[in-house]
Structure formats: C-alpha cells, structure tokens
C-alpha cells in the first residue's frame, strides 16, 4: 500500500509528519485504536521510560504552543523489544528524543511506537509483527 508523504512543520517545538507506518508487535490488544496510515513525529523530553509488560510506554513531554503536553507512546512487550536491541536504559528522564508514532484515533495524546531517534543519533524501530 502506498501512502502520501507530506510534512507539516508545527509553529513551535513539535513537527507532524504523515507517512507509511507500522505499529509495534502485540499479542495483547488490537491496533484498531491507532491510525496506522499516519505517522506523527514528536520532538520532546523523556519524562519516564517504562520498559514493562504487557507493553512498554514512553512518557514524553512535548511543548505545544509553549505548553508542556504529556504523550503516552506505547511500545511492544519487554521480551519482544529486548531481542531487537531495546532495554531498560534505552531512554532516561531528560533525554531529548524524536519519536515517530501512529496516533490514537480518538485524538488523545498518545500512539503506537514506530521509531525513535536517540540523542546519540541511533535509530530504533518497533515494527508490526506480521500476521
């Protein structure tokens, strides 16, 4: 499937990008709640990295029009992520990171992990398990 690619720069700190995306692996719940045709790019500061089951969560603070907004970005389970190079120290509080996520359809501040660019420049991806 081919999705249109277009980038929109937000006036302030965060940017939004529409591209083809994939959602993280999950055995836990359906991904119907996420819009997998959209990929939103967030630049923000890590509040907390929860490397947990059934899913991992990155609590990210993003400045929107000068207001700090907390996003919950949902990733895969510990056993899935640790086998592709993620870990409990992947993010630490205060890290400035760039995240791409498939947003929640209902518009609340969160989504499913697609990829992360760490302060080192390293990219981590969390794709969708086929099937």
């Amino acid at each position, binding site marked *: *499937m081919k999705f249109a*690619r*277009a*980038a*929109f*720069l*937000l*006036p302030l700190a965060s*940017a*939004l*990008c529409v*591209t*083809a995306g*994939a959602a993280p*692996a999950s*055995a836990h*719940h359906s991904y119907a*709640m996420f819009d997998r045709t959209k*990929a939103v*790019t967030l*630049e923000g500061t890590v*509040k907390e990295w*929860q490397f*947990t*089951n*059934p899913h991992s*969560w990155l*609590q990210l603070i993003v400045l*929107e*029009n000068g*207001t*700090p*907004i*907390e*996003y*919950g970005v*949902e990733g895969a*389970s*510990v*056993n*899935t*992520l640790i*086998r*592709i*190079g993620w870990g409990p120290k992947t993010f630490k509080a205060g890290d400035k990171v*760039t995240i791409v996520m498939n947003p*929640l359809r209902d518009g*609340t*501040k969160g989504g499913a992990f697609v*990829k992360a660019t760490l*302060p080192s*420049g*390293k*990219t981590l*991806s*969390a*794709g*969708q*398990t*086929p099937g």
Partner: protein
Amino acid sequence: MKSGFTGPRRRARVTAAVVVGLSWVGGHAWAQTANYPAGGPKPPSWSSLPAWNGMWERDGDIVWDDRIAPDQPQTPPYNAEYQKRAAGIPNRGPVGPGMPNMMTMIFPMEVEINQREMLIVGESSAPRRIYIDGRLHPEDPLPSSTGHSIGQWKGKELLVDTCCIKDSTPLPGGGPHSDALHIKERIWAPDANTLLDEITVEDPKAFLKPWTTVKTFRRRPDWEPVEYDRQENDRDTPAGRGRGGPRAGGAEAPAAPPAPAPVASAAPPAAPVPPVAPTASASASPAPARSRPLGKPADVVALQKATVRAVGAMAWESVKISNVQRDPTTVKWVAATRSAQLHCTAAADGDDSVCER
C-alpha cells in the same frame, strides 16, 4: 498348585490382592495421578533423547496455518451445528494459552526433555508437558487448558496424543470444540536448528474432517527466557492500573490546548513531499560514519536480521530479501514475509534499520 488356593492361605491372598487392587484403583480414580500400564513406567534412556533442549523461536506469521494465503480464513472445518455455535464469536486469532493455540508461540518457547517428559514453556502461557515415560491418559481426567499429552518415539519422531482440554479453552480463532477433541502431533527435527510440529486437531463431533497445520521453530542457542508479567503495567483494565495512568497519555498531563487549528494553517496539506526522512529528524545529531559495509556472502542473512531488528517478534529465517540497493551510507531492500511487503532502510552496516509497509 490349585490346592494352595483354598483355606486361610487363599483368603489371605485374596485380601492382599483386594488391598493392592484398591490402592491401584484409588490411584487411578484421582485425576492427574500418573496412569502407568501394568509393569509401571518405561522411561526412555537418557542417551536416546534428542538434543532439542533450549530456546526456539516461531517461524512465520502469528497464524494457525502459514500455508493458507493471507486473504483466506483460518477457520476449523466445522460441521453445520458447530458453524452455528461458532457464529458471532469474535475471532481472537491463534494466540492465547492452552492447546492448540499455544503452539503458535507468539513468543519463544523453551524445550527441556528428560526421561519423564518433554516440557514446553512459552513466555506467555502455562507450561505444557508431554509425558514420554509410558503412562497413559488418566482414566478420570481433570480437563485443563493444555490438556494431557502422552508421547511415543517412532525413530527420531515424537508422536503425541493430547486429550482432556477444557471446554472453555477456545480453538484458534476463538471457536468452540466438543468433548471429543483430541490433538495428534508429530514432532521432529529435520536439522539441528529446526524443529517441526505437525498438528492434527480431531473433533469428530464438531468437525467434518481433521484440521492440520505444521509449525516451524528455529533454534536460538544464545537466548534466555524473558519474563512476561502482563499484570505489571496493564493500562487496558477499566481502572487503568498501569503505571503512568490510563492509556491516553499520563493522568497528570495538562489538558491539551484547544486549538490545533494553527497547524493546518501553517502547513497546508499540499505541502511539498520530502524525499526521505521526516524534516524533524534532520535536527537529530548525525549518525557516526559507517566503515563496515555488509560483506557479500553474509548479505542475505545480515539483511534478514536487520529486518527483524526493525520489526521484532519474527524469526529472521522467515524473511525473504530482494531489491537490495546500496550507496556509501545506506542500504535499502524489500523484505517479504507471508503477509507483508516491507520497504526497509538501514545504515550501510545494517544498523539503524527501519521498515515500513
């Protein structure tokens, strides 16, 4: 000597036989007490056991039968009555605890074989035991999600029969089964790094014919099991018991500003299309220079593994690589699985891989 079976001596023998018989029957009457045939257990010798111990990863998709095309249904061959019973039950896919769902193994499994049993431990379900010491199924079984499995060796293949699966344990896809459910398996290793399990689900009361699949597992000699405690941070419960509040962002997050409208005005949908990376990524510090391009002989395996690093929960052996394009800093390729065509990009050494549909 027949004359020896009369009088007090005979009575004593009969009494002893009754006592032994009662204790034997008593053992049988309790479900999940080993039901050995006459002669007791017949464990195989240690040296005859195959070298299957260790961690194995599911090959292929998270489906019941990889041989069925992605656009075709994976439903049991129900008869008319069970088709009616299954109607309206939401399809929960081939995952979940119990047999035969658990053999789809969304997460890796650990196998340990000893003279008594082959133990199969997944990371998200109860362990399963296939007894190989000659015992029979219980005469008065206690049904369970994994059922009761007994195996016999036929050459290097383990032939398994599983009975006694709980009514409440759904079949793959979520459908029901009858009390006649039996599962037969043939487990063998065509090579040292591959384990195959041919599963035949028989339910003469519910099916028109047996329902089969073949599951493939790939050896992961350096993997260790990883704990999967789904209660740890579950935000799907109504009370949102997970850390950091319910699913929709942090509970303590300030309310979103009411107007995302300026976004649209600042960036009309007809904005020019960027060629590769999102603009926001450009602000990240550049990746260090790569000096180790992928060696040609290892290309395919390296790209298969790079695909899995980008996607996760998938055996690299199930990925097919094509259309590899390189330049000094990046490599691009197409990775095909049974159900997905992924367009992948990575640094020249295969690091930092990202795949998109």
